[in-house]
């Protein structure tokens, strides 16, 4: 038994230390390597967690989408586990975006929330996937729960471009924040900033996979317990 579990455990350990190293490097880059931005000051460094969190939330929900489709196609519990786990982690990252957004916005734009296109779309996305998790919580485990969740997982992701454009066009009627939005990225961004952003993105991606692995393991343990409980029931 020790031999069998050591291989996945080992890769788990490698991922863990890799993630720690990645995060340490990213933190170094964010706080020591990259110079302070001229117009916004030190607060601008929040961008280096805010943006990678947003990308990872999006990536996590993409995984939910793909896993949901694969589940409906193959009817394999494995895909359902991936969908559930990725959705939960996606909501965590999405929440980080919604928390760091206002904290960044307040000193820069003077208001906690400005209904800007990206933050609003993120809020809607958060609501969709929280609803996804609530749905899973309201149905007994089994084929029905997995199927319903998969449908919502697919419908939710396909909405993203529609939400993006509708919110964007809606917002162009309202005055833009006066200071240049720091979301005009990639345009005239210093190389050190780009490197720091990429390092942070890499670290967060590793973190995503680490958390995903942990969450998947929890579901698999739950499944094992349910399976054993059933065995116990029948053996009596």
């Amino acid at each position: 038994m020790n031999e069998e579990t050591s291989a996945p455990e080992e890769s788990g350990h490698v991922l863990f230390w890799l993630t720690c190293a990645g995060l340490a490097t990213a933190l170094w880059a964010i706080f020591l390597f990259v110079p302070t931005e001229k117009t916004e000051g030190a607060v601008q460094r929040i961008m280096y967690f805010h943006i990678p969190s947003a990308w990872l939330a999006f990536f996590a929900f993409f995984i939910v989408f793909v896993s949901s489709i694969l589940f409906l196609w193959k009817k394999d519990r494995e895909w359902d586990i991936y969908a559930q786990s990725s959705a939960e982690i996606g909501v965590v990252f999405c929440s980080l975006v919604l928390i760091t957004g206002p904290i960044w916005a307040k000193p820069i734009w003077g208001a906690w929330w400005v209904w800007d296109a990206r933050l609003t779309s993120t809020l809607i996305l958060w609501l969709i996937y929280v609803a996804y998790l609530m749905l899973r919580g309201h149905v007994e485990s089994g084929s029905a729960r997995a199927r319903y969740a998969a449908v919502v997982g697919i419908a939710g992701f396909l909405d993203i471009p529609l939400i993006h454009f509708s919110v964007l066009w809606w917002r162009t009627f309202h005055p833009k924040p006066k200071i240049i939005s720091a979301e005009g990225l990639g345009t005239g961004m210093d190389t050190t900033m780009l490197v720091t952003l990429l390092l942070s993105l890499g670290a967060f991606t590793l973190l995503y996979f680490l958390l995903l692995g942990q969450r998947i393991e929890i579901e698999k343990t739950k499944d094992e317990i349910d399976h054993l409980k059933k065995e116990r029931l029948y053996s009596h």
Partner: protein
Amino acid sequence: MRQYLNQVTAIIWKDFAVELKTRELFSTMFVFAVLVILIFVFTVDLSIVNVNEVGPGILWVAFLFSGTIGLNRSFMLEKENGCLQGLMLTPIDRTALYFGKMLSNLAFLLIMEALLLPLFMVFFNVDLFRNLGSLLLVILIGTVGFCALGTLLSSLAGHLKTRDIMLPILLYPLIVPIAIGAVRMTSKVLMGEPLSEMWNWVGLTLSFDIIYIGVSIMTIDHVLEE
């Protein structure tokens, strides 16, 4: 193909027949919509805000809220009388079942909207006739999107004990593009703009409609498996 259409019409006809007998669904939806509009009239000071901007928003909130009631109740009626199981036992194509349900939901909602429009005109002093054709088209494509996704989600949520709370929680975030688009388009249409000036919104709403009809067709089998 003929048989498929027959199946769809059978479902629609059944829903109308039930409704004509009981008249519950429609009256509930209509009264609720009127109440929603009234609450807004009382809580929003219409002398300050621009009616042309706020009016369409209130109208669509009334449509969406009462539409949700309609979706919930239409499914509930099936469940209550064991009708759903009966339907599932028939060798009917699941997508025909979906289309039947969707079209009957659409029909009820459109009829209700048609009755609400004169009230809207009266309460908010809006001129509906300036751009009537465009207005009706806008309301149609918005309502189709709502019914397309709403029917899928209500057939899903209908299996839950907590369906009354779960349907809105699932539906409303997803329906945001329709909400924003329909209100924008209605507002512009009421101000006299021709549809050609809002092609992006029309395109977006039509895309929503097509995407969610597509998703529903492809996933309804998995929802109605039992």
